[in-house]
């Protein structure tokens, strides 16, 4: 019997094209046995949400680099809410000042991973939280 899979959407948003981090994370989540749908660059919040719906994703992972997180995060959270995707986990990664982490969590981000995070911590977080969400 095969195992049921955790399905993760990994995406960039807006014009910033620094996709290296997103790609590396995507590949390593795959190696951790997850099914990763990689959306690539220049996504709009709505586009990300539509993909999450079609793919019945458990997790949406968005990667930022250059300060656009405060612009797009609210839009993504809003789209998640208006589509009733409350059972989907929203995880963001990239570079932000620590001050913004609580900020983004207030907005509705479930977890934030900054540069220099070890892959294991990300994997452990996703695995455990997804299980929680579904019980």
């Amino acid at each position, binding site marked *: 019997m095969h195992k049921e899979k955790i399905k993760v959407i990994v995406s960039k948003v807006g014009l910033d094209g620094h996709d290296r981090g997103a790609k590396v994370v995507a590949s390593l989540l795959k*190696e951790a046995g997850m*099914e*990763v*749908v990689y*959306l690539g660059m220049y996504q709009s919040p709505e586009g990300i949400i539509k993909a999450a*719906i079609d793919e*019945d994703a458990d997790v949406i992972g968005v990667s930022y680099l250059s300060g656009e997180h405060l612009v797009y995060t609210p839009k993504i959270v809003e789209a998640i809410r208006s589509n009733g995707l409350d059972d989907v986990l929203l995880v963001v990664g990239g570079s932000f000042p620590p001050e913004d982490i609580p900020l983004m969590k207030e907005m509705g981000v479930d977890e934030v991973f900054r540069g220099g995070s070890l892959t294991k911590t990300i994997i452990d977080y996703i695995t455990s939280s997804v299980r929680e969400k579904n019980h």
Partner: protein
Amino acid sequence: MLKKRLSSPSEMVERLLAGDRRAAARMITLVEDGAEASNSLMKLVYPHSGRSVVIGITGSGGSGKSSLINHLVRKFREQEKRVGVVAVDPSSPFTGGALLGDRIRFQAHSMDDGVYIRSMGSRGYLGGLARATRDVVRIMEAMGNDVIIVETLGAGQDEVDVIHVAQTCLLVLSPGMGDDIQAMKAGIMEIADLIVLNKADLDGANFCLRSLEATIHYGLEESEDGWKPRVIPTVAAGARSEDVQGIDELVEAIEAHQSYLHESRTIEEVQAKRIEQELGLVFKDELQKVIFRGLRGTGKKRKYIQAILAGRTNPYSVVEDVLRAFLKV
């Protein structure tokens, strides 16, 4: 149980028929996970399936399938057809994980509600990838898609089975992969109704084209039902709009094959063949389920194996006994 709690099957199917993406998505997940619930669901879905044009596309990596599909979708949307896409990518045999990258190529449609795209990992499906794919296609049919495109990778037996979910099967090749082509020539006959030579702008395309046409011309008798695969050169990649070539021709060829299927009423045979194949698959894996469930806990399974190892009996007799026991034959 990993996946989320559900509303009743009938309610879900209702929503599906109303074209609700989330209902479709959730049902596909159930099918993927081979959940017990899926059978009862599929029973309800089945009557609403079988009404769409299903196109299968395979070809080895780097042949540009995704870009090709991107343009096909564009065309069908111009004809105001609703389109569903099932994009299958290989799962890692070691970790079971999969990196599903096709959506990058479909970005142009990322905001189009008339397009439903679902990426699937090939996983280690019980009953084969084909069965799961077929169910996914049915769900997409029931949700009201006029055209459904099934994309898969390579031309091994699994892929062939998967592609046979479709009525019209495309094999995508590209120049500069001569060996693959040689390897595939063998399979062409049973896979392809149409052969797409993508990246036809690359060096060596002409040579490739000729050799393919030759293969078909000499290699294949016209099948009794009178359809002979054709080769259609295309260029699907490229940022320039005029770079893209052969898409219209391809769509026409697909339509030609479809109308051929209907006019020659081959469609029934095809469908009959598909059903037969499906029953085969379903029996195989349901039966296996039944038997193993029956043996579970009885410790018999181990006994049988030890007996065989000890040479007291052999697999054939064991199967006979077991079948007799279970099926009262």
